[in-house]
């Protein structure tokens, strides 16, 4: 219980002080939306704690440091990332690292899993043939990303859905990727995301991920993108 309270309060304090120092209005290190152990047995508490409080926090801190005193700091994060090709490496990598992780936490939930319904469910079926076919294509993209990176379900400019994968901390908002789009689902396939529980078995981690996907959150991102 103590850990949970600390978890809720600390990041809030930190983000407050960061916004004041950096003058970056939408740059916040939000609390994790659930406890570290909430996604067990699919994602273990130690992995969640390291992933959120060390990896994600480091990207956030490094981003704040990289933006400090630059004109880039005045732009919203999504606008900033869209110009990735012109950004210094430190802003592109840490900006992506912060955005991607903050987004990833939001599309998982201890009450997740199952099958998407409503508009999103219909759109996935229409786009990929069936939900299972979508899962298969997303899993294939996650398995074939060589090295560190992410897999995404995105909405393209014309409203169509597509699956894509990005290297390291790039994401589909960036003008450096093959196909840009608005992310509605993300999976981190850096080894730090699964190594403590699954080691070399990335496939087992991907299988586990489906049990914690928050389809309500994904549906909300989908509808907001239209």
């Amino acid at each position: 219980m103590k850990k949970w309270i600390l978890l809720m309060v600390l990041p809030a304090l930190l983000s407050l002080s960061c916004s004041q120092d950096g003058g970056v209005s939408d740059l916040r290190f939000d609390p994790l939306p659930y406890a570290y152990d909430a996604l067990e047995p699919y994602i273990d508490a130690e992995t969640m704690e390291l992933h959120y409080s060390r990896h994600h926090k480091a990207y956030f801190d490094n981003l704040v440091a990289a933006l400090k005193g630059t004109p880039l700091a005045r732009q919203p994060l999504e606008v900033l990332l869209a110009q990735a090709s012109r950004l210094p490496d430190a802003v592109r990598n840490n900006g992506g690292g912060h955005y991607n992780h903050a987004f990833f936490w939001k599309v998982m939930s201890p009450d997740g899993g199952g099958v998407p319904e409503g508009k999103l469910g219909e759109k996935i079926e229409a786009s990929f043939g069936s939900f299972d076919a979508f899962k298969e294509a997303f899993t294939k993209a996650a398995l074939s990303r060589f090295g560190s990176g992410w897999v995404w379900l995105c909405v393209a400019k014309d409203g169509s859905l597509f699956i894509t994968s990005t290297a390291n901390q790039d994401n589909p908002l960036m003008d450096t990727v093959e196909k840009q789009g608005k992310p509605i689902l993300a999976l981190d396939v850096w080894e730090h995301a699964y190594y403590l529980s699954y080691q070399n078995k990335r496939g087992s981690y991907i299988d586990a991920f489906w049990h914690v996907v928050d389809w309500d959150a994904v549906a909300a991102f989908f509808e907001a993108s239209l």
Partner: protein
Amino acid sequence: MNQQVSPHTLPALPYADNALDPVITASTIGFHYGKHHRAYVDNLNRHIAGTEYADMSLEDIIRATSGKADKAGIFNNAAQIWNHTFYWKSLRPGGGGEPPAALKEKMEAEFGSVNTCKTVFSAAALTQFGSGWTWLVLDGESLKVVKTANADLPLTTGLKPLLTLDVWEHAYYLDYQNRRPDYVKAVLEKLINWDFALENIP
């Protein structure tokens, strides 16, 4: 069923799986050598069966597929076999310490001191963003430190590799988690095989 004899095999580890403990634990070696390195070998054999690459040496496969997007599956697995074999030899139980005199002279000539050389090497290992490798290489006559992403390696850029450090997260996550600096420091202090680097200088 066409039974293809696998041309590439997993080279023996040059020491026991617990020989690098506690800097690199037997558990890490078990996965890193026993699963990752082995998977690269198995994947390569599967990829090249029945192709023009089936009868080539590992280095020839690497050179023939480097930079070809449509051959990435073959290149990545072949290069990772080479990199890992070279990595195991770049470490030894009771390593670290002072480099042998001939290597030390080269480090002093290029970097000013052994310590500066190690600092440059560490910095390269810490700043490789994402998965990759750090290398001590010979560029002509002079020593250099370079870093490569994912499976890339100096062989394909005309440099002569002397030793390498794996900075993929799988190399250190069980033992050091997010603390890559602790892994790099411990390996340089206690495991790095300077004799191997010297042997690689022609």
